């Protein structure tokens, strides 16, 4: 019994020390007037850790560069990362920590729509800006109940309806396809959103959806479902999802002799995709994206080169959009000429014609960037520009 009492005392002491340490640590850091803290609420661990780590890498790059000059006359930007553990409730927890412990002036992330929506209640309550790189669900910036824009929520990416619609029109009109199958990542609201709008517009155009199937993130074997899809005999398969699974799906589809065109959204954008799927298998596939790697803008070239140099791998879409988010936040701080969160939010809403690696950004009244989409085709593993669609 004595032993356990001792253990308990130790525990209590430990807990107090921990609390005190993190409490003091937090307040001490914020006293430094020359540092502006920006939160990165990202998926650092858990099933989607690859999203968050790409994003963090890109933000680090931006801040490093900006800090050579500084913002607001020489102040340094510091990234404080909180982990969402790839889980929406933990994102809420992390957001609370960033805002109340670390007292950040703005937050970047998370990438998963559900996490952005959940944590959005906190940052909107505390009137601090949050910009998500990849939270594509319309509800991220608009409250579905009231239809009002969430004042402090922004995004750098497309919303689901746009991409789905663009692809539906493209395959119906340009490729002349009438029978499509849809294969959705059932764990991702991004994929579900894209699929819903693709279906709506494809059917409205006069096409028919002959099969609707779903997979789960981290699945590796898709042959059974692909066999089922093959039996429905579609002329085209729409696979809005992320490249990890999409690569395997394309590879396995070609193996079982499913040679129809396939397409998806910006989740396909990765240099890993041709490696996973195989260059030959990837022929006759398309995807909608914000920017094309053929994009010869200096900014994009610089970004790709820098990223590759620093991390020894090509940036993916999470990195590209987080890079833009970081630039946008820095610009908003500069525009606001203040570190007051509410002013930064207001400045962000006013940003017009900002040039990022993923194209030009002007926010509409729903805090969605108005961006044009490009359709990209894979030819022998190389992304080639197909056409450009304006919103």
């Amino acid at each position, binding site marked *: 019994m004595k032993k356990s009492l001792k253990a308990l005392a130790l525990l209590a002491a430990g807990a107090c020390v921990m609390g005190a340490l993190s409490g003091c640590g937090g307040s001490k850091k914020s006293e430094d007037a020359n540092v502006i803290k920006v939160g990165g609420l990202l998926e650092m661990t858990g099933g989607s850790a690859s999203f968050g780590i790409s994003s963090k890498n890109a933000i680090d790059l931006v801040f490093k560069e900006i800090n050579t000059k500084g913002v607001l006359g020489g102040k340094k930007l510091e990234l404080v990362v909180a982990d969402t553990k790839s889980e929406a409730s933990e994102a809420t927890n992390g957001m609370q920590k960033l805002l109340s412990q670390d007292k950040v002036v703005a937050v970047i992330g998370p990438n998963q729509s*559900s996490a952005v929506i959940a944590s959005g209640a906190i940052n909107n309550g505390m009137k601090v800006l949050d910009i998500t790189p990849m939270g594509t669900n319309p509800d991220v910036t608009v409250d579905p109940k009231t239809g009002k824009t969430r004042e402090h929520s922004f995004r750098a990416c497309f919303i689901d309806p746009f991409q789905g619609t663009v692809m539906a029109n493209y395959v119906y009109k340009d490729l002349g396809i009438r029978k499509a199958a849809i294969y959705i990542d059932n764990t991702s609201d991004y994929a579900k959103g894209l699929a819903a709008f693709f279906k709506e517009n494809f059917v409205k155009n006069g096409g028919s959806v002959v099969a609707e199937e779903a997979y789960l993130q981290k699945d590796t074997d898709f042959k059974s479902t692909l066999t089922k899809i093959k039996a429905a005999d579609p002329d085209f398969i729409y696979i809005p999802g992320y490249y990890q699974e999409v690569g395997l799906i394309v590879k396995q589809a070609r193996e079982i002799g499913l040679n129809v065109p396939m397409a998806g959204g910006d989740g396909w954008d990765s240099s890993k995709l041709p490696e996973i799927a195989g260059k030959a298998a990837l022929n006759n596939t398309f995807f909608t994206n914000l920017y094309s790697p053929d994009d010869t803008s200096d900014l994009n070239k610089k970004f790709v080169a820098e990223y590759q140099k620093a991390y020894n791998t090509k940036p993916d879409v999470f990195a590209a959009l987080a890079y833009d988010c970081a630039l946008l936040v820095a610009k908003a701080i500069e525009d606001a000429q203040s570190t007051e969160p509410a002013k930064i939010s207001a400045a962000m809403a006013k940003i017009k014609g900002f040039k990022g690696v993923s194209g030009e950004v002007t926010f509409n009244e729903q805090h969605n960037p108005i961006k044009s989409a490009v359709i990209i085709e894979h030819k022998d593993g190389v992304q080639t520009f197909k056409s450009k669609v304006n919103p």
Partner: protein
Amino acid sequence: MDPIRKFDLKAIIACILIYAVVQGLIAVEVIGPFWELNIVLICINIILAVSLNLINGYTGQFSIGHAGFMAVGAYTGAVITVKLGLPFALGLVVATISAGLLGFLIGLPTLRLDGDYLAIATLGLGEIIRICILNIDYVGGASGLMGIPRFTNFTVAFWLMIAIIFFIKNFKNSAPGRCCLAIRENEIAADTMGINTTKYKVMAFTLGASFAGTAGCLFSHYFFLAHPATFTFMKSFDILTMVVLGGLGSMTGSICGATLLTFISAYLSDFPEWRMVIYSVTMIVLMLRRPQGLFGSEELSRKMFRLGGRQNG
């Protein structure tokens, strides 16, 4: 069995004191929103841990599907408040009852199994519950049920936790509770002594499941949403770790385990890259040093209870 004994009275006074102190600290903002959030999380985790301890620790039935029941509570509670617009209190009651009902239905056939087989069966059932929820579009499917108002606060979470702790403590000392303990010590012997083992196993399992439902409802009404990705078997492992770390079969152990692990998790959030590595090493080392858990199956004595209670703040 007297509902309120002298000790209970003292303990209740202690709880009121703790509540007053913590609530006061929150009011004067010594405890900021982040730690307030973690304190509420600790309360929820304590409910989960003590309810799992009732099944694993007191009755000796190896269940690792607790997250499934939590999910049922989280979703049914949210359906009551969000979809039907009924009061939160009703949501809590319905969440508790529905999780308990499911626990009963699941427990009846599966509790015939024992040891690792029961463990893997409950793990499977937890996953089945989650996958079913994932496929129900009415509650948002894979996107989760969003827009849940924040009805849970420290007061609600704390007093529900206290109520559940007292309930389980009294259950343990009651006749059915002693039957459960007997089953843990030796099921065959308990059977020969005329104890209806199935009845008491199912009883403990149902109670444990329903309290997990309560915790789930509190959880979804604190974090604004119920999402299937929250309730994976990893969550079950987390709860199990709290219970085993504190000491299987020790109520105070579960309370301290839940508190400690929630604190470690919150503290490590400053080092996201290293968080899981440190967490896992802590877990392994603690188990190697004290495989019976911090408290073994002992309880803190009455005198120490207040000390243990202060941990909650």
